[in-house]
């Protein structure tokens, strides 16, 4: 799990073009949206594509993204559960 989280940090920074950030700046449990990292709805759509591209997991309804992308840990858990 921790390994996957570390990998996700790098992918997140790249996909969302978070120029100033290093993987160690992101806490696995902090909220990605709103108060935490401050991502928005467009970022959520970018992350949906990231899941499909890197992990072969499709999210059909963008609203489902809210729970999955709460934090890096929830994202990693979701990947573990859904990856074949």
């Amino acid at each position: 799990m921790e390994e996957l989280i570390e990998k996700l940090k790098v992918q997140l920074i790249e996909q969302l073009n978070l120029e100033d950030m290093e993987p160690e700046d992101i806490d696995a449990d902090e909220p990605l949206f709103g108060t935490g990292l401050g991502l928005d709805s467009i970022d959520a759509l970018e992350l949906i594509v990231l899941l499909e591209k890197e992990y072969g997991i499709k999210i059909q309804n963008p609203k489902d993204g809210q729970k999955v992308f709460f934090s890096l840990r929830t994202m990693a858990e979701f990947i573990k559960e859904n990856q074949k």
Partner: protein
Amino acid sequence: MSRVVVTGIGIISSIGNNLEETHNSLIKKKTGISGIDILDTKHRGEFLVGEIKLTHEELIKLAKVDKSQAWTRTALLGIIAAKQAMADSKIENETNLALVSASTVGGMDRSELYYKDFLTEAKNHRFIDSHHAGNSTEMIAEQCGIGGLITTISTACSSSLNSIMFGARLIRSGNTSCAVVGGTDALSRFTLNGFNTLMILDKGHCRPFDATRTGLNLGEGAAYLVLEEYESAIASGKKIYAEVSGYANANDAFHQTASSEDGDGPYLAMKNALDIAQLKPSDISYINVHGTGTDNNDLTEGKALIRLFAKDLPPFSSTKAYTGHTLGAAGVIESVISIISLNNKIAPPNINFKNVIEEIGIKPTNELIELEKPDHVLTNSFGFGGNDSSVIFSAVKQVIPESVMASSLTDIPVYIVGLGCVSPQDTVSRDTFLEDIMEVDSTFLQIQKPNYRDYIDPKQLRRMSKIVRMGIVSAKEAMKDAGIDNPDAIITGTGMGCQIDTEKFLNSMIDNDEGLLTPTSFIQSTHNTVGGSIALGNHNHNYNLTYVHRTFSFESALLDSMMLLNEKKANELLLGGFDEITDESWLIKTKIGHYKTEKITGDLFKDDQIGARAGEGSSFFVLSDKKTDNAYAKVLGVEMFFRPESAKAVQDKITIFLSKHELLVEDIDLVILGNNGDTEFDRNYQELEQSILKESNTINYKHLCGEYDTSSAFATWMAARIIKENKIPVSFGAKSNPSQLIGKVLIYNHFRNINHSLILLSK
């Protein structure tokens, strides 16, 4: 102030090829939404669209145009609708007839087919020059014999309501007596895939204002209205469909794609349109809502309706379940539907509606109903970049309200009171003025990058491509220079728009065969991204328009700015012109001889390679109706003309333009010319220097900024500083420091002898 009426209508969409068919489909609840048959996409069978079931060849026939020419589907749809409108109004080749058109992605329907050829093989290169957003406008002007001012607006999905508004204002202000206004957009893989990345496409039929809605259906089409001055329409005994009584544009300033929770932008657009028309909410008989069928739009538009209309909410409906969302054409197509509603005393049903959205509790009319008092109808269009517009059409009354007639034309002087410039030269700082010219080490000129972090929050910066960054920096510099925090309007021009994002989305769409695409570059590719981003950063809810017509883009924005100040709708506004260059866009234009391919070692103006040296940049100005201590210059006027017949015609245009300002050529102290090193077209300038400008003091500017569509904004920046400082930069050598005062400066520029423009500044 003149009243403006509609005397001709032309329309083509998936619910009909003309006005009568459109009317019939509406009353028979006949939708145009279907599977995809014409557009060549891998999403066939997956999405439903409002597609016109005519092939490219069939459209060429219907448009009655020469099949050997390079036509985009967007241009063909536009020509078909504009020809209908002109025939309906019985207007012919009038030299004073203006054309204000709109489009979101211009010639993308062909570009996306041939893009890889543009970069490589000499096949399909004739479609390279039909890509820009103003192309369909020029094709319409040529096919319909329109000889007056032509321009194009692109503010995403609100585009064509803004072209109706601008056309009406051109007539009201006396700039022209008649105008063809509207917009056109064909379905493209670019927009289909783009909206798909946003996950707001409904795979079934869209259900606007229904609680179970899950998104929109895209559509295509074009519509045009002929607008005329009321008195002359009456005098010539014309059929009058409606009066254009109100219009407004406002910015939501909330998010690049989503609407604010309470629909601030939509509320302001509707309210301001009512104010212009001097109407109360209870006067409106029917509203054709934007109603796309997305979760966000319908909820927030509904909230805005309740805020403004409260208990007086009239019957309303969205007609997007008939036509699909036709993007740049949506505003004018729904205007035609609103006029049908006004003339036939009906409200077209909002088909597919069943369940009321609980949060708002309002129900659109889902049956064809008769209207009790069809005096005034309102229509809404909202777009990316928070760009929101509303237009009101009214039944024509003989009695003119006194208050309307009382407001007369004004002639308020317009001053440049602040400026900011990002260019291939060191221009951001106002402490220097082109003293040292940058050495050029590439075939085209690129901007000197400012430190963006000094101007833009890194969190916002990560999505912004070069054009947005330089736009914001120069806009902020101009506002700082003028000492203002927030302008009363933001009016911009860009010829090619956000090329980096467009290329990025287009390439990945083609390379990945329409799969695994992400939304950011699609969202950022819209032409009004810079204007929208400035509004967003400044929480600016005011008027916000973007003109996208090659070398008329900045000039149109300047004209609009001067009109807005004269209408007293603004005291201080922000005006800008910008374009960006990329390796790929440069390469493509070298294929058709527009740009030079090799580095220039000697004098640019004596270089014998084909084409111009390309460049880029962004210049912004704060214009004010008051002369401040910081004032640079007064803007006396701007003029655009399309395809002049001869060199003599250009000379006549210049002398007539000057005479309008009671000036002769010899009264001009300095002429700034658009020579760009393309010997074939620089001949135009030489001919002038050998004729009417023989005795004039002339300088060039494109050796500093390169050739790009909005380079006249750079020339304007230069002229303003020359006038204020009363000196020509030392780098201009012998031309520097003329003995007398530089009181009047004329800028003349043209693009390949097609689009010509004049800008006149004075002390």
